[in-house]
């Protein structure tokens, strides 16, 4: 599959602290800024892969429950215990109504993502695909640095960039 009109983005999350929604607001802004049209079509899909989304907030919610009791724990960040929360947050920010998928793990998910981009494009479900690799380092969760990087692929573009999915894999390999 030849990929057309690629827009790459990357954001350092190694020192990310503060409100989780503010962090992802910034990620959404970074993605919007890299895309020449800025406004995404409704047929935009998000394919996000992550080894650890939800982990920090899962542990945090249960810590809170242990401290205050399950009936008094603060549920504010409960949605962020789900690995799917970052991708659905980005969909909301970017008004992306296409398939919204979160894969747990790393770049081993790329063949699956490629297969789905091809399928969803053939089914006319997507005009734009956003592939995101998210690794958190919220409050020092990961010893490795945290980052959010990815590529916006404009499926229906009228010219081709000479890139293949293998080359895209190389991009994700370079952290």
């Amino acid at each position, binding site marked *: 599959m030849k990929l057309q009109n690629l827009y790459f983005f990357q954001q350092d999350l190694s020192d990310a602290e503060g409100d989780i929604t503010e962090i992802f607001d910034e990620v959404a802004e970074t993605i919007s800024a890299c895309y020449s049209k800025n406004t995404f079509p409704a047929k935009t899909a998000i394919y996000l892969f992550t080894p650890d989304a939800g982990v920090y907030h899962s*542990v945090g919610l249960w810590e809170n429950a242990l401290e205050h009791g399950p009936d008094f724990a603060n549920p504010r960040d409960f949605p962020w215990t789900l*690995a*799917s929360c970052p991708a*659905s947050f980005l969909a909301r920010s970017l008004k992306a109504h296409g398939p919204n998928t979160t*894969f747990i793990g790393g770049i081993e*998910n790329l063949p699956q993502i490629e297969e789905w981009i091809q399928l969803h494009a053939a089914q006319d479900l997507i005009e734009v695909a956003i592939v995101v690799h998210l690794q958190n380092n919220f409050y020092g969760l990961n010893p490795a640095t945290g980052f959010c990087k990815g590529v916006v692929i404009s499926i229906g573009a009228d010219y081709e960039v000479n890139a293949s999915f293998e080359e895209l894999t190389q991009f994700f390999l370079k952290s």
Partner: protein
Amino acid sequence: MRKEVVVVSGMGVMTPLGNTVEQLWQNILQQKCAAKHWDDLETEGFRTSIACRLTDSTIPQDGTRGQMMALRAVEQALKQANIEINRDVGVFVGTTMGESFAFEEAASGKPLDLSKATGTVFATAIQKHFNLEGPTAVFGTACAAGNYAIGAAAQAVRSGRVKVAIAGGLDPFSRIAMVGFSRSRAMTPDFCRPFDVNRKGMQLGEGAAFLILESYENVLKRKEAPLAIIGELGLSCDAYHQTKPNEDGYEMGQAMHNALKATGIKSGQVNWICAHGSGTIASDAAEALAIHNIFGERNTLVSGLKGALGHSLGAATAIEAVICVQSLLHNTVPPTVNHIELPSDFGIKIAAEPFKMENMDWVLNCGYAFGGINSALLIGKV
């Protein structure tokens, strides 16, 4: 792209209403409800102590809860498929919370090993146990994850990327989810009542279900009987709210529409809708509207299985897919346990009791998740 008809050749389950497919099916038809009081939840201070859990004695203790549930379900599925698997079999898993107890222990100060806690642990356990090296994908798409895994596995078989796939979903009981749903006031204080005028919320469950998928041709070559066809998976996203569905139900309907269109069938060919039916005020109302908009006045029967089984998160749509296959095999629509009265403005037809049909061709398995993630998977008679 090579196109294959993908079929189910084996199924296995671990659920609060039975640890074999037949046991689960009979208990569903007998309108049993798995919800019961749990002393440990009361002692620990949860607002509600009612949940749908597996009793510990039914789960082998030689591994972690989630891994054991997954392995037992896969063993059953492989046995029914009567297949000797090669190393290149693909493994597709959906889960919401992963091995939740590992996060709970980390909160008490125990070191956290991500490889033993997040959803990948289940795919790795299946690969190791059955000596597999094929492709894997783990879907963290919350309460729709089972549908995602089955849909992706079917596509991998269709495209020829894998010949045989093990696909399903699971979530062991999660205290983190229990506290989250409870404190978000999404849980019912007594029983889950899908699409009922007096519904008060969801009920947490747990479980695992796995299916063996392969091409129709492959099953016939092995001289086995395929159980059902896996149609296409329809997906969409509300992009509306972190937890609430859009009340217009439009994108839920789009997921249904996308599944019908991609499979190439009309809504009138669907005999039964296995609804998400979480029992919450907002989700059931939006889903009823979506079904009405797509299926119109055809009176296609709708059931919600979470009244019987609770909401087993990433396992839910996988368990429901197994029940969809059983429904097709027996031409019987399963009942909506705890449903008594439909709100007057819902415009759908609920199967409150088991309903035997002359013939069933297609059923639609729906599952939605926080963040407006919508899925609908078509399953058909062979």
